[in-house]
């Protein structure tokens, strides 16, 4: 699929990683998942094809939200929870910018939950990189809206008693048009998904399952750990059957109205019976089911789960302005001041 978005200015100049490296010391803990995510961003930005001056990074507050300082683009490090709102203003005001919003699970789903669902609902053309470490990192280890039920943290010494969000489900519930999930230990997949996110017109949410080595170490290991990942991760490819397992011998099938894991070669199941992924399907039905899958009975699904075409908010803003300019009698402020009832004294 070619780029649809022609609003952001493009360049033929070949950019490289060095074009986006900042001179600032990266202050994340050694071993923090953030480092790999930064590497992926530096790898993908030069490939997207935009002028380097047209990237704008916006973040909230949290370990993850320090991100803009570590990339050499235009950037705003905002306030806690408001990255999506700031990004909305950036994009509406200047649609020629490629806006990247970096946020944490606390930043976007707790204090910023309201802005998060609304930016998605409006389909403002921004790219949200949501670093989900299932913990408040910067404030040193309190539970977040994605911390699994029962987990012991600094503020839940007896285990949490609240049910976590599934980010994909939340995104689709808010009528999201793009959702991808990636682990922080697979730079290639991260890079591919970020590229897809950039291509998508509208709000893209990429959930990056990030390891916080200090306060929630190995939180994702039961899914993405070396020993289990073959059985517990299903990496989607558009147009390809949804298979997983060490020998790619398992797949997802639709039985009645539910997804089920089937073993290829058993009970007469062949690869042709396996569901084929359609990330562009406008109907989020299957995509929503995929986003919700998790071990022990299912693999967790990674890659681009949904990428549906809908008009973007910022395009509609421009269209209304263009139409108004063509049709309105009021062309400038002098016209406005003299419009309606006026009289000479």
């Amino acid at each position: 699929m070619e780029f649809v978005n022609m609003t952001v200015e493009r360049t033929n100049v070949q950019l490289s990683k060095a074009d986006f490296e900042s001179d600032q010391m990266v202050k994340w803990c050694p071993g923090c998942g953030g480092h790999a995510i930064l590497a992926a961003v530096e790898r993908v930005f030069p490939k997207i094809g935009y002028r380097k001056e047209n990237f704008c990074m916006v973040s909230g507050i949290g370990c993850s939200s320090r991100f803009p300082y570590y990339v050499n683009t235009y950037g705003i490090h905002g306030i806690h929870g408001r990255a999506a709102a700031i990004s909305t203003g950036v994009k509406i005001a200047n649609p020629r910018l490629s806006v990247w919003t970096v946020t944490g699970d606390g930043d976007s789903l707790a204090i910023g939950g309201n802005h998060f669902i609304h930016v998605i609902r409006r389909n403002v053309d921004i790219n949200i990189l949501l670093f989900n470490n299932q913990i408040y990192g910067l404030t040193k280890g309190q539970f977040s809206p994605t911390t699994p039920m029962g987990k012991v943290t600094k503020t839940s010494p007896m285990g949490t008693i609240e049910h976590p969000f599934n980010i994909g489900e939340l995104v689709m519930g808010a009528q999201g048009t793009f959702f991808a999930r990636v682990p922080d230990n697979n730079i290639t997949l991260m890079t591919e998904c970020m590229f897809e996110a950039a291509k998508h017109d509208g709000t893209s949410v990429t959930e990056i399952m990030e390891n916080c080595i200090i306060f929630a170490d190995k939180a994702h290991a039961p899914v993405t750990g070396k020993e289990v990942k073959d059985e517990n991760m299903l990496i989607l490819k558009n147009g390809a059957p949804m298979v997983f397992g060490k020998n790619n011998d398992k797949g997802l099938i639709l039985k009645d109205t539910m997804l089920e894991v089937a073993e290829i070669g058993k009970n007469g199941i062949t690869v042709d019976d396996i569901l084929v992924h359609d990330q562009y399907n406008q109907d989020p039905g299957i995509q929503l089911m995929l986003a919700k899958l998790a071990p022990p009975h299912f693999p967790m699904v990674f890659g681009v789960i949904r990428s549906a075409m809908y008009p973007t908010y910022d395009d509609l803003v421009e269209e209304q302005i263009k139409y108004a300019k063509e049709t309105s009698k009021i062309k400038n402020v002098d016209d406005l001041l003299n419009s309606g009832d006026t009289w000479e004294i």
Partner: protein
Amino acid sequence: MAKKKRPVIEREEVVVKFVGDSGDGMQLTGSMFSDVAALVGNDLATFPDFPAEIRAPQNTVAGVSGFQVHMGSSKIFTTGDLVDVLVAMNPASLKSNLKWAKKGATILTDTDAYDEKTIEKAGYKNNPFTDNSLDSFNMIKAPITTLTKESLKDLGVDNKIAERSKNMFALGMLYYIFNRDLKPSFKYFEDKFKKKPELIQINKIVLQAGYNYADTIEALESVIQVSPANMQKGRYRNITGNVATAWGLLAAAEKSGRPLFLGSYPITPATEILMELAKHKSLGAKVFQAEDEIAGICSAIGAAFTGSLACTTTSGPGLSLKSEAIGLAVITELPLVIVNVQRGGPSTGLPTKSEQSDLYQALFGRNGECPVIVIAASTSENCFYYAYEIAKLSMEHMTPAILLTDGYLGFGSTLFRIPKMADMPEINPPIAEANDPDYKPYKRDPETLVRQWALPGTEGLRHRIGGLEKENIIGTVSTDPMNHQIMTNNRAQKVELVANFIPEQEIEGPAEGDLLVVSWGGTYGAVHSAVSQMQKEGKNVSHAHFHYIMPLPKNTDKVLKGFKKIVVCELNSGQFVNYLRMKFPMPNISQFNKVQGLPFMINELTDKFNQLLEEK
């Protein structure tokens, strides 16, 4: 037009109020009446008095809607304290507005609206016509509904429609009482009902019938003439403070070449600014109705970063929600216009009533050392100029700036002499040039301490800003203690230096004397009227009305020092007065305050001032 058999009494100024049930069309009637006054050349100010409820029960006091017009042959400064002529379409509106009628006021009312039920619903124990409570007024009791229907008999108009035009009958009577021409209203009907010619005819007939009826009645001894005011030549229109604010922002955007962005969330009494700007997409205005006030201001901060004239409009509770984000705009040193149309607080308070109680919030209501420019408009019309000014100061000085107006200014309207854009002052934001090798995010102009505005998309200026303290000049994150001191001083100093770019404080009256009356914001009209009345009586009193609050004009100290006594009048418990005391500790500053959701009355001000003059 009036048949000259009645004497014509010339009046310098008159206050007329139209009141009735929400469905009686009082807003329209009032604005038609004021439009004609304006056309004749009167100066005027108007104020709509809406019920707080959207659809209050019919014929109750809660459902009364009003429109007040103060017109005169000299300059009009307020919407008027007490009413000379009251048009009350039902018992509830009479009951709730009688307290605003002057002794001897003319009261026109529709006797058809008085029956047992409506009288009781209005909360009257007895019929007001029979209990002597109206004895001190000049009552014109007219069966307006019956007469309206009668006037339309020949047209075969159904009763409902006929009843709905009774406000035009009342208006016709008022036109007679004020010796007005009917033609402008006829033309108004012709324009408004182009597609419904039958309505043109109905309205014309009823208006004329009311006019003719007034000519025949006994209760009217004379007609009132308000001659044209001696106004500056020019093209005029009516404007409310909220519309004027919106237009001022549009004007500043056009002049500066910076596209307008508004991020806002509806809240009374500020919503009209959002609604007005939403209409003007043809001028390129980008108007974003956000999910809450926080998103409103945060989106505006994002837009400011990209180079827009970024604005957010709200009222008290909304300003509270924006506090943290204002801090972000302060530390990132981005231009941002914040308009607060004040209302009664705290909390939801009195949403539809006016107050000046958000001054502390505007000055101090944030964490950290967080200075912003604060200015206040003083008339509905000058909301245009102060909105323009706040945008200019905010962009030229790269700082967030708060414009305070209030519900009284926002909803009220005055005549507005239409300016030409060519005559408006230049606005020159300090935009950084592409590939400037010397560009640094926090490098400052030595005279103003203003940093440059480097817009995303520009070649050679990539940089990061944010809420963490930044290293002086170079703009990287810094926790160095001395650096924080320097940056804190710079941010404060930058705002203080704005004083070099604003006019000196003016004094109405002598620069020295016994009493200086100080006021700010929307109370200008009342305080000015009180002081000038006393000056005419030969009293030694002057008036200083402040528009610039942070920073204060450079000569403020000097202005205050010229007087034996100072009294600061505000519609709060004393916020500006304490701010002045903090800046200029002087023993002779006293205060006069009112927190009732109501404007100052001129006589309560003169009483206070006279008392201060008499006290030794």
